[in-house]
């Protein structure tokens, strides 16, 4: 029997500038757009890491599950309550924001933060397991189809096939992030939120309602996670285990971009998404997870505060 060996690594390491390929630049740009779309989702999730870090100086290890669960709640609303999909989206997202924005802060963050950031971080690990297993046992262990609210067509521009769904994801996610950036830096409420994140004690002295600002941060985090969920679930399908990959890549994105900057999370997400896509295309699908991890190690060694982060010192 004739057996064919897998493509040798040299053959798989085809770089876009090599002349022996047909339309290498068009292919490269297609990978780039696909990577930016995935990266935009990672950015939305990565911002959650930065928001929680800024307000409670801890890492929410359930952030991936925060992106997984809204889609499950939407489908559950449609299935169990018999709601039409548009209404189910509304109910699922509102329920998620109440449960995992308001509820997360009141039930987990507030009681645990008094005992230090480590117990809180461990509590978020437990929360991630509860969310994942709850989605599996309470809804389904199988992947579920999730409707897309974005155009599914492909257009050809300058010889490049472009998925409108990918473009729409990039636009929607970037608008959401830029809107958040404007809100934080350009509005009175946002500046109060920023002041609370920078120094809650001084903010309190200045008359800023710190507790409300912290709550607002958690609600925004839940809202962004819900948006990411609605954008990514039509592609990944809604499944209880989706949070594992998204959480890991968003965590890497937050570190790469800078844990204490929203714009860092945006840049980190896009960089990680593009690297992931190019690694899958030009190296190997098997090693695609390893490449962003290598980037993570390099950033930690060379610029530990992240590409756009600012160094922080802490008195202990």
């Amino acid at each position: 029997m004739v057996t064919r060996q897998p493509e040798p690594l040299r053959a798989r390491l085809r770089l876009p500038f090599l002349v022996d390929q047909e339309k290498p630049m068009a292919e490269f740009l297609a990978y780039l757009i696909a990577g930016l779309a995935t990266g935009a989702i990672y950015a939305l999730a990565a911002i959650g890491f930065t928001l929680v870090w800024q307000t409670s100086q801890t890492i929410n290890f359930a952030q991936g599950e925060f992106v997984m669960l809204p889609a499950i709640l939407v489908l559950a609303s449609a299935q169990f309550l018999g709601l039409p999909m548009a209404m189910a989206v509304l109910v699922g997202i509102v329920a998620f924001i109440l449960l995992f924005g308001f509820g997360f802060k009141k039930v987990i963050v507030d009681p645990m933060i008094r005992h230090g950031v480590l117990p809180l971080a461990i509590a978020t690990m437990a929360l991630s397991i509860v969310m994942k297993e709850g989605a599996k046992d309470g809804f389904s262990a199988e992947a579920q189809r999730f409707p897309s609210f974005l155009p599914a067509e492909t257009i050809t521009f300058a010889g490049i096939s472009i998925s409108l769904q990918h473009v729409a994801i990039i636009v929607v996610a970037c608008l959401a992030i830029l809107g958040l950036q404007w809100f934080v830096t350009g509005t009175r409420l946002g500046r109060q939120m920023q002041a609370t994140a920078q120094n809650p004690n001084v903010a309190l002295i200045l008359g800023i309602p710190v507790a409300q600002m912290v709550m607002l941060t958690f609600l925004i985090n839940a809202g962004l996670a819900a948006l990411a969920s609605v954008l990514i679930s039509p592609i990944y399908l809604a499944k209880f285990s989706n949070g594992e990959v998204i959480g890991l890549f968003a965590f890497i994105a937050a570190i790469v971009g800078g844990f204490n900057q929203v714009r860092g999370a945006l840049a980190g997400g896009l960089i990680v998404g593009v690297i992931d896509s190019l690694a899958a295309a030009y190296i190997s699908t098997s090693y695609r997870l390893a490449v962003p991890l290598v980037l993570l190690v390099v950033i930690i060694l060379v610029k530990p505060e992240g590409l756009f982060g600012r160094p922080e010192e802490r008195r202990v």
Partner: protein
Amino acid sequence: MRLSILATLAAAALSAAPVAAQEKVKLINVIELSGAGATAGTNFKNGVDLAVADINAKGGILGRQIEIVHYDTQTNPGNTRAAVQRAIDEGTYAVLGPVFSGPIGASMQISQRAEVAQIVGGEAAGFTRQGNPYIFRTSLSQAAAMPKIAAYMKNSLKANSVAVVWVNNDFGKGGRDQILPELEKLGIKVAVDVATEQGQADFAADAIKVKNANADAVFVYLNEEESARFLRAAKQQGVNKPMVGETTLLGAKVIELAGDAANGAKGHVGLSVDAPVPAFQEFGKKFQAKFNYASDHNGLKGYMAVYMVKWGTEKQKKFDKKGLADTLRGATIKPSEEPGILIETTIEANGDLDRISFLAEVKDGKQVITETLPKLKP
């Protein structure tokens, strides 16, 4: 007097105990109910449950009711080994499952050592080539299916080049290793050979690779959820070449998950509730009524697995674990003898099956059978 009453009661209890134990026969299904194989495993489990309910309603096997237990392997080979060992320790009459080929390969030595038949849903060619006389399939192996697919691509689709997309697990590697020589024999060039990972969520890069390869057809050999994700990604990237697959690609769950992107997918199916076999269609209706969704091929596999046990037991007229495997090996089970087998099935000496199969296409979100192919050894 009191002593004699107690003695009588004790004697009655002792004599009743074996009778109670004999009323049931225990079958343990070691199956993927979570993890990457959840879709396949859940269908297999539901098929098993349907068969058990049918058989028990008609008096069981040789008068004994079946007691069915399902253990979730989480699609993990280590867990599968532990579950098979547990099934053997708990005295299962035969081991049912799993479906994924990797976990089958990792666990089948345990049932072999215990001389207990293991009836599985896997399709990878390798595990029936290891001389294990206790392993039995419920579907055609890749070795039987791939020549049919290659011939279909050459003769019906007139494909001279094919993009091959496969999942990097035992199932996918086995399929790829079977299809490549068949393509080569027919002079079909492999335009691009794309390996993907089990559980992979993002297929955009793979779809772009396939699109740029500009092959005449795309052979997709992935598990259920990954098949659906790939089809959606391919549609997103504007891949407009025929998608060809083997059973999984055309399965009900893939069609449900992929939506419009599944339309036009073609290929070979070993088992299908849409096949022009009245017993399959009847099974499909019962399954739909009980579980409120359409069964894929794995539901049929689970159903037939239990009926293989029933037929083998009734054939040997006793509950002998080793004898069950001996009876099944080399047997041809006809629906006239055992209607639950649904379709004439020949079990070869190594546990492979031979039976008719089908060519199909997805049209308007439904699998449509276009041709029935004969048994390899009619």
